[in-house]
């Protein structure tokens, strides 16, 4: 199910990030969403389709408009470039309704929010909600070139004193080295940003005694590593599908007409997990455990690829057309 929305406004947020304001086509309310939610934007690039997830970077509880912030990925697969260069105010986009894989920890008594670059986006809704509720929190952001500065200004206006902007990752880590040992019991740490930044902050927190149960991570751009083409076979003896260097296995399966269930499309949720009967997967998700990876009997096709093919998929159940 998709919703049709019209691009009502667009603005540059600095650092190669473009914000789009989306309103329901024909008017009317948009579905409500909780902080940390994302929508999947359907992008048609010729014969290829990109389904890109973007956090809703706006006030939850309002149903008149959504805002998303899109960072241009220079060597990406064309989805973000399309939203930067081709989409204009007045255009219509198809999106999937909001889903949430990064909801605020419900039992937290205080939130320590840490964002890198465009990773500020999920925390826009967080801060709107926390500031409204008078809940204690502090937000640390690091970004070069004034990335997302207008969003930071918006959040400062909501909660002056709770928003800390750092010019780079070194200053961010210095700020957190000061902040982490001073958090009262009941504080939760939530991270969103590039993987190296989250790894560094996670290591700093672990060294200060933070257990994993207090640390929550929103990953984006999980799929790293070379994009080599490979073949996937739809069941033993089934037809072969060529997975191009510019598409994911999930996209190739969808192109072949298969209806594979999915949610996050970034290797986090495990919804698209598919059985493997032959070949060796190249796991790039964060969902499967080390043991599950070692058995090589399943794969998350949204990000993972093939180390030795052809990859024979177990599509005997509902996914087959």
């Amino acid at each position, binding site marked *: 199910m998709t919703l049709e929305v019209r691009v009502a406004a667009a603005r540059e947020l600095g650092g190669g990030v473009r914000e789009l304001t989306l309103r329901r086509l024909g008017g009317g309310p948009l579905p409500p969403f909780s902080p940390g939610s994302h929508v999947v934007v359907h992008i048609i690039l010729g014969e290829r389709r990109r389904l890109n997830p973007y956090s809703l970077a706006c006030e939850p509880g309002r149903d008149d408009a959504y805002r998303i912030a899109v960072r241009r990925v220079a060597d990406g697969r064309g989805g973000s470039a399309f939203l930067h260069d081709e989409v204009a105010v007045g255009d219509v986009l198809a999106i999937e309704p909001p889903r949430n894989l990064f909801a605020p920890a419900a039992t937290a*008594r205080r939130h320590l929010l840490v964002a890198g670059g465009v990773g500020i986006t999920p925390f826009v809704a967080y801060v709107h909600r926390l500031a409204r509720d008078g809940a204690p929190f502090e937000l640390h952001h690091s970004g070069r070139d004034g990335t997302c500065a207008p969003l930071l200004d918006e959040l400062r206006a909501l909660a002056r004193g709770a928003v800390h902007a750092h010019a780079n990752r070194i200053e961010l880590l210095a700020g957190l080295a000061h902040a*982490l*040992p*001073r*958090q*009262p*019991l*009941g*504080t939760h740490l939530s991270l969103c940003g590039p993987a190296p930044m989250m790894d560094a902050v996670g290591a700093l927190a*672990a*060294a*200060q*005694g*933070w*257990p*994993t*149960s*207090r640390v929550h991570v929103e990953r984006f751009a999980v799929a790293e590593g070379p994009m080599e083409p490979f073949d996937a076979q739809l069941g033993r003896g089934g037809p072969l599908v060529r997975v191009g260097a510019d598409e994911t296995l999930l996209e190739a399966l969808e192109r072949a007409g298969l209806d594979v269930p999915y949610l996050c499309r970034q290797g986090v949720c495990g919804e698209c997990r598919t059985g493997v009967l032959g070949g060796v997967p190249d796991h790039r998700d964060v969902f499967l455990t080390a043991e599950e990876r070692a058995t090589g009997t399943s794969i998350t096709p949204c990000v993972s690829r093939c180390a030795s093919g052809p990859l024979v998929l177990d599509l005997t159940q509902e996914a087959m057309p």
Partner: protein
Amino acid sequence: MPKVVGVSPLHTSVPDEHRAAAGGGACHLVACAAGAAAEQLLASLAHVDPRTAQLLWLGNALPAGPHAPRALLAADGGHLEALLRDRLAHARVGVRLHLAGTDALVRRLTAAGLEAGLHDDEIGFACDRKQLAYRVACVHCHAITEPVETTVADCAGCGRLLLVYHHYSRRKAAYMGFQADAEVRGEIPAARPGVPCP
């Protein structure tokens, strides 16, 4: 562990007798009543820098070991809990709580830790013996009855005869009790001694 039938040992609320806290704590609160469990716990913490640990001790004489010099002596269980609550009020994320003593004491101190904002994985404990006398929370009047030693007991609050169920509240450090003849009036299940288990 009590024998658990048809309940996942990973997910049941009936507490373990022993569990270690997650590693890597930046500092440590240790609250113990003298006994074999406390000795074992202190031995397992011997490598912890004494400057990062505070021992709260219930017993006649302080134990040997690196954490004794900074120990505080408690007069009784209530005093030990008060000392712990005072420390927890000023604690910061990164602390680990280590508990040893009778089951009943460990559960009460665990509840104090959770109330202060600690997570389960930040609390380690070792029990000297499975509790023989436990606490029961009445679902009708919310009163806590203690000590209870059989699975059918009078509520100290509303006087109802309660069946003690193997549903344990870590927050209240008590088992759940409800009217014993709730299913069929006048039909009272046989009382069993000891901790309720399925």
